[in-house]
């Protein structure tokens, strides 16, 4: 692994160098009622708009690689026959500037499902292969618990990762593309002092977490507490609105619909991201619903993230970004739900 050090002010030069491409990064999106600034990912044209010191964005960046709505194919009809046309929906490379470790980890997890050996998904793959990722270090917000989920640092899946250390950045260079771009910046080699400073920065960050989840034996506990009353209590609070899945960086479930245009010359097959909390998620033709109660649907979301995915990949599908808890209108947060299932509520 190659490390380089450069002055914090040089990050603007890096942005300018990359700005011949489309850059997506954290920008300001107004104010919360409590006065704090709200952030979201968007296309950035001017370095001044890029807010690298953001806490957390409202949404994850997934719309850029798992669009909320996407055409899977179009059909043209002619002479009682049809032709199918497919377009994977990727046309250019994107730079993602300022992704935090949780969001890069989320991508790495999605890669396992969507780019694995079994039916790899070209719609995701085509966009994922064209992401140049510049990661950026962060400080814990009151609602994030990435440390508990092992997602507070990231081992790969990016081109460049920038850790802010006092007035400088330590850059971890992960691709030849990133290496060549860094050659045009004024950088120096990392020294032993830098290495020590890196460790100090990391341990300072760890000490700032206020929110935690105990994941020990969680897969087993979830199985034992499958019939627990607490699911019903959370279910009674849940509005089944699907907002949590909407903002989550790792929720990828979807539904498919077909639409015909007015003159019957074309049709489209459209994929729409869905949420397992929505009432008809597991409903089949004829009206039978495998999860009719909001509690069974909410429980299922936790099962998928904290049990099923762990069994399949030995890691959780939740990165602890805290977005779902922040966005939930019923104040349902992952740390509280898990604590109550474990029976360790205060």
């Amino acid at each position: 692994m190659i490390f380089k050090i450069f002055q914090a002010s040089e990050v603007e030069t890096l942005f300018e160098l990359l700005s011949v491409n489309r850059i997506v990064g954290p920008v300001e999106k107004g104010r919360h009622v409590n006065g704090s600034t709200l952030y979201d990912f968007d296309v950035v044209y001017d370095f001044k708009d890029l807010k690298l010191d953001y806490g957390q964005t409202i949404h994850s960046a997934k719309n850029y690689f798992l669009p909320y709505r996407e055409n899977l194919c179009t059909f043209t009809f002619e002479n009682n026959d049809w032709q199918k046309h497919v377009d994977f929906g990727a046309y250019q490379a994107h730079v993602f500037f300022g992704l935090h470790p949780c969001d890069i980890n989320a991508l790495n997890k999605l890669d396992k499902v969507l780019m694995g050996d079994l039916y790899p998904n070209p719609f995701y793959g085509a966009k994922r292969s064209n992401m140049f990722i510049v990661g950026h270090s962060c400080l814990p917000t009151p609602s994030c618990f990435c440390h508990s989920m092992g997602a507070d640092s990231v081992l790969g899946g990016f081109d460049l990762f920038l850790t802010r250390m006092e007035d400088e950045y330590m850059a971890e260079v992960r691709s030849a593309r990133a290496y060549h771009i860094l050659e045009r910046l004024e950088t120096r080699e990392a020294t032993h002092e830098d290495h020590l400073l890196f460790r100090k920065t990391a341990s300072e960050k760890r000490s700032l977490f206020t929110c935690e989840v105990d994941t020990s034996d969680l897969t087993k506990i979830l199985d034992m507490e499958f019939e627990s009353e607490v699911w019903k209590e959370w279910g009674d609070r849940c509005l089944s609105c699907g907002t949590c899945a909407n903002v989550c960086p790792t929720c990828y479930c979807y539904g498919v619909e077909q639409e015909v245009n007015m003159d019957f010359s074309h049709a489209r097959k459209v994929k729409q991201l869905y949420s397992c909390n929505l009432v008809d998620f597991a409903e089949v033709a004829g009206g039978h619903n495998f999860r009719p109660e909001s509690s069974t649907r909410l429980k299922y979301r936790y099962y998928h993230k904290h049990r099923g995915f762990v069994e399949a990949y030995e890691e959780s599908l939740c990165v602890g970004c805290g977005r779902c808890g922040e966005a939930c209108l019923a104040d349902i947060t992952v740390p509280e739900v898990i604590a109550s299932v474990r029976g360790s509520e205060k």
Partner: protein
Amino acid sequence: MMDNKLQFIDLADSRGLKNDRPGIAHFEYSYKAEITNVYPLTATEKLYQIQIIDPKERENFNFKPGQFVMLELPGIGEAPFSISSSPIRHGDLELCIRGVGKMTNFLDRVQRGTRVGISGPFGTHFPVDKMMGNDILLIAGGLGIVPLRSPIMSVLENRSRYGRVDIIYGAREPLELLFTYQYGMWKQFDINLDIIVDKADDKWTGPVGLITEILQKRIDSGSYDDFRKKTYAIVCGPPVMFQFVCDMLTRAGLPMERMFVSLERRMHCGRGKCCRCNIGSTYTCIEGPVFDYWSVLNLKEAI
């Protein structure tokens, strides 16, 4: 500054479809197929003969009994259906479909000659090869006979390789019985076929009652040792039914790993991507639809 322009990586050789399974451009590929014939079986179910048009693709379409396909009607919908024909017929498929929703009701009105898309085959299968040399019990309730028809044909085609073969089939009333025209043939192949209905009509001369009554007789006629060592069972039907049947078989000595059921869930992709089919967090389209009963017991929310 042009060299900072990131090169676009064309993941799958530009946009488009390719029949290069398991390559990435295969994801949305569907075989163009034609509905060559439609037979009404009952008031609500029809048998559709569907042929993959390209002879090479048809020949290379290989599946195992119990697997399913996604059937696509462009502009209308796409849904999973068990293949109901024999594997030796490759891409000359038969699907038995009940009209229940948007696409299936549309299908109910289509003419022969209609062009459709087929993708798959998907999912796990009944291990008919492993069952060779053993007695086989095939138990179906209602529409559950549909996924059973493919293993039945497979067994018929290799009759000498199996021991005693029993089919026990229950339906609500005689008019709902499927594949009536084939019962004679099944019997000619030395298969014990027992059919029971919940409610008889004027013409019905067979038994009336629950499937479990027939099963009890079958159990009583065999020994515990035969069940323990040389019997396999395939059970398809509504969850309450297969649970009841499987529990009876367990008590009769049949090990849970030798009982297979086929589960049904909502499906939007068939490829382990949409999560609509998950039971707990198991993908029914990948790890199912065929499960052994031991696995079913371990799936939360399966029954």
